[in-house]
């Protein structure tokens, strides 16, 4: 199980951020997510693993200084 912005989702072995986002049925083009507080950006989504019991935050906006 992983928690995505408070929502619980099924976890599977080898899950990547890209897998997780596909499972959301959410078409928003996320650029950055936090996995247990750690920043992962879109270029890394395909290879970045999501561990079981992870807390995931989806950041839809990066605003600059």
């Amino acid at each position, binding site marked *: 199980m992983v928690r995505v912005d408070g929502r619980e989702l099924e976890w599977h072995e080898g899950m990547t951020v890209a897998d997780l986002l596909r499972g959301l049925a959410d078409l928003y083009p996320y650029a950055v997510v936090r996995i247990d507080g750690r920043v992962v950006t*879109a270029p890394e989504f395909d290879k970045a693993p999501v561990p079981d019991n992870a807390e995931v935050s989806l950041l839809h906006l990066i605003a*600059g200084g």
Partner: protein
Amino acid sequence: MAQITVEEIRRLNYERPLIEKGYANQTLQINLSDSAVVVKPVTEKMKEVFVGGKGFDLWLLWHAVKGTTKWNDPENALCIASGPLGGTSIYPGSGKSLVTSISATTGSVIDSNVGGYFGPYLKFSGFDALEIMGKTKVPSIVFIDGIERRVQILEVAGLPDEAHEITEILTDWFGQGKPRNISVVSTGPGARHTLIGCLNFSWYDLQRSRTRLKQAGRGGIGTVFADKGLRAIVARWDTVTISTNHPADEIALKKVARLHSREIMEQDPKQNHMSSVGTAHLVTIMNDYDLLPVHNYRYGQHDDAPSMGEDVYRRLFDKGFDGCWIGCTLACAHGVRDFVPTSGPYKGKRVFVDGPEYETIAGCGSNLGIFDPLFVVEMNFYCDAYGLDSISVGTSIAFCMECFEMGLISKKETGGIDLFFGNKESALELLHQMARGEGFGKVVGQGVRRMKTIFAEDYGADRALLGDIGMEAKGLEFSEYMSKESLAQQGGYGLALKGPQHDEAWLIFLDMVHNFIPTFEQKAEALHWFPLFRTWFGLCGLCKLPWNDVTPADNKQTKEPAKVMQHVDWYAQYFSAVTGAQVGPDDLIAMSERVYTFQRVFCVKMGFGRREHDAIPYRAMGPVTLEEYESRRERYDTQLREVYGIDIEGKDTAEKVRLLRRLREERYEQLKDAVYARRGWTRDGIPTVATVKRLGIDFPEVLEVLKAHGVE
């Protein structure tokens, strides 16, 4: 602690007005040349047209200077203001001061916003804005004591040179046992010896029992301050409560402030972690998207960048509350305790360092090819202590390093300093030289624009190449984002009134990453709305970070997520609650458009503000060198083929660089046309008479400036 002596030159005892709905309704003018201290009324018309903050500053500055005024002429004014919402103790980000002057580096109007308690203390002492004119040969302090209701010009002796020590001493001297009541504006020796001096604004950190600093950095505002003979401006005020700003509707204010504060507390720990790492969270994100400047903006990425990411600074930052104004839940002004510099006058001593933020990490780190977080902390410390703008320092040294590597300058010119990228000792030595006004550091301290002239005329360097790689526009050094792949951000930098600082428009993600604004018209619309909304914060005495560095959980489901309209709506409610004027989101934009357009006319008055002045170096648009092109060859080849329909078969890299350059430069000119049209300006970039009339800023002196430049 050093012993100082002060002697009164002039005193004005005054009646302190009650603050009414966010306004003191008067400003303070001090002329250092003849020690005149004058209190001037704020008219209803002034509030209606200019709102406050930067708007008031600009109006005062406009009347102080002529079109021929230079930055170091006595009539140049240094204006500091809060704003009607400034000083609110329960709404996040409500303590900003806005500073304007004629810039030492651009020769035109500069503005900078800064945290710390000065702006609110100035207002609560009875003045919506402070205007410092003239010059004195006597080292002087201006003391504004809102508790005792007196303004003094004081001669001071015995003050040390560095800003953090000046601040500590004056906080102790004037605080009368209550250091929290004091805010100091000061600079350091670097401001006297360069053109890129900054101002430090202080507040007293009760938890750590020490003074803290934030910087008004851009355009040599600190240099103007030092040139006037000022050592410090000190404001003294007492306890601040929600009632101190006397809002029109305290209940409505509490309600909207609670909503925004609560949201920050709930969402920031999930989103950008501003309250624990500040803007340092941006380093790895920018790096991953090829947006972190590396080696003088040649590249946007480096394998070593994560060594300066948020995880590292989270460990380095001292734990505790870091709000630069009371009641800010974003609280992003972090610092490093017990840092021990490896060089310079504080070598081996323990110091507290306020920062670093993203701009300093990128400017004094990656852009110099240096990926050592402690080195950046040391650069940050000395930039603040010396009163130097860490953005201009970083961008200027990066330029020198590239010139050195290209052979445009050599050890002969640098005085024996080896300036290859990555050389930490050399970068620090240059910084110390800048502060002393010695050696090659004295040249670097003139900023990139003047260095380009010196390198070409005195050292025989290739002027065209210097023009391509010297990252300045309008005479101001670029802040620390790569704009090569975002036309909208090229406009965000090039079309910014004061020069290439991202506080007007930061559109990289909207444009490059998400491709939400693909057409010229959409980019032009973004370059209309975003600079205007960002301007609004400066009119009111607010920080923009709570607007879009934390967002509502459901923000992405809104029509235009980048505008964060829920927050815009809260800001309208906030303005209404304080001032009593019932406004909506569109009214906030209208307020800004008046001031923004007026500032452009002001630039025209000063001999700038036309199409030619919105030019940017090609390095900001695309690859200058063959190496840059080759490093991202697939990207550029694809663009030439698919976006521009060019057959690149058989073309060598040099030819492709030329083709891409021609196309990108054409696109930038087309963007200018679209933006000028959207803003109601001529093709030469000057506001039309119809525009200034529509905005109600068609004052005779404004029309005169337009007429003198062929706009009738």
